[in-house]
């Protein structure tokens, strides 16, 4: 008979890394499915490019399929993995940082894959078909790192949107989520109205165009940080 003694528990950092391992324990969700989607979309795009007789540049916006997938991953991280992490005696703080670390790793992986895809496209003149899925002149304006950063920022924003929306839904119900979305919509409309009143559309578009991909990605990451901070605040009082 051996009495159970308080065994040494992992360090705080170790436990956050364990949350990452928990998220990746089934690598399907965070690794293989995104890559599978990307691969399938590329194959479909190539087939379509072959079918199009037009000789000029053909663009595929297929990589946005991933965006929707990451939105779903963000939602499920909260609705399913959060309650599971609670049963694993993980603190909310550990769950939050571990989950964001996982999302960032996946976003970085996607950024690398898309950038490598962009290199291949520009080297082969669009897979020899003048078809472009990864490479756009605007995102590659600041070189491959800028292009990678834009993908990373967009992936993080999508994941955060799902995670954040699901958290609002769980804490404040369907009505709460609707009110927040209506509120965001109202703010956007108000912004449009102000720009229209000031007759500033030309200036705004000029500014956006001149901003370049890197600053714009940084703005997106800034939004991610703000949403993430409110997410943390909500998660701290969330009941699974």
């Amino acid at each position: 008979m051996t009495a159970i003694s308080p065994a040494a528990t992992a360090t705080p950092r170790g436990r956050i890394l364990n949350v990452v391992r928990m998220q990746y324990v089934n690598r399907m969700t965070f690794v293989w499915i995104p890559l599978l989607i990307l691969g399938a979309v590329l194959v479909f795009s190539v087939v379509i490019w072959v079918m199009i007789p037009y000789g000029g540049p053909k663009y595929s916006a297929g990589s946005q399929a991933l965006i929707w997938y990451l939105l779903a991953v963000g939602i499920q991280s909260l609705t399913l993995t959060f309650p599971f992490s609670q049963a694993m005696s993980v603190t909310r703080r550990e769950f939050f940082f571990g989950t964001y670390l996982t999302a960032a790793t996946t976003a970085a992986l996607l950024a690398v894959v898309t950038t490598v895809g962009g290199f291949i496209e520009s080297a082969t003149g669009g897979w020899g078909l003048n078809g472009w899925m990864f490479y756009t002149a605007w995102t590659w304006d600041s070189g491959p790192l800028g292009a990678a950063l834009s993908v990373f920022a967009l992936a993080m924003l999508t994941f955060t949107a799902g995670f954040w929306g699901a958290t609002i839904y769980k804490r404040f119900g369907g009505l709460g989520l609707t009110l927040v979305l209506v509120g965001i919509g109202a703010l956007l409309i108000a912004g449009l109205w102000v720009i229209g009143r000031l007759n500033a559309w030309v200036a705004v578009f000029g500014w956006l165009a001149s901003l370049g991909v890197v600053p714009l990605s940084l703005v997106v990451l800034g939004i991610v940080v703000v949403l993430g901070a409110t997410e943390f605040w909500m998660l701290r009082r969330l009941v699974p």
Partner: protein
Amino acid sequence: MTSVIEVENLTKRYGDVIAVDDVGFQIEKDVIYGLLGRNGAGKTTVMSILTAQNFASRGRVRVFGEAPYENARVLPRMCFVRESQKYPDDAKAPHAFRTASLFFPNWDQELCDRLVADFQLPMNRRIKKLSRGQLSAVGVIIGLASRAEITFFDEPYLGLDAVARQVFYDRLIEDYAEHPRTIILSSHLIDEVANLIERVLVIDQGRIIMDETTDDVRGRATTVVGDATAVESFAAGREVIHRESLGRVVSATVLGTLTDDDRRLLATSGLDVAPVSLQQLIVRMTQRAADGRTQNEGALR
């Protein structure tokens, strides 16, 4: 006795509903508790507040002397798998077990493997496709193999057949004998767990109405068996909480501790004393608590 959990004036409100009403109790180290009560009595709420999954509206909870909320020193020493536990979307049972092995420092993989075989749990099917009983088995295996110092089982038997339930009770006792720890088992199959639990905590409408050792609870009543007339004359003037008859033979469970006079009377009337069903006793106590409340409310009006 050292206590591992201390609860004072714990209250939980959901709007107008009071789920837990000013409750106080202590949980002693290395004891198996039965947390008993009707559906909606507040069992799950209490357990989720103790494990910091839920929040108290008022009151104080100490686990190993500390507040459990966001406390990475305390939480890994507890394991609470809910009755309606959710798992990541495409997770299979081995994924859940591998994750549990990361977070519970005393995790025993050998025990886990043995339990998987005992419960005949399919390892290749996604958890969301498992039957209710298999889903319960996943939770039971995590609870046992994590060997946490305080383990909560929230109606762990849902959907388990009689054989699987017995496997659970047997393994629990075996492993507890080798590795004593605090276990809090919520159940309403009271007679099934009666031989397992050393202490009884009965919660009813958010209040603790009983906090005693199982033996003391049993001592509160006696079942007498024998000829109908003899049983009835013994039971006259006593509160009978349960009565069964088969032809001329009647068995009656009467409240109250037996005095020496009672024992002599039983002997001379040729009556036998049989073990009391814990379930009947607790059902009666719960009803009595409810009656008491109605009377109090009546008096207030």
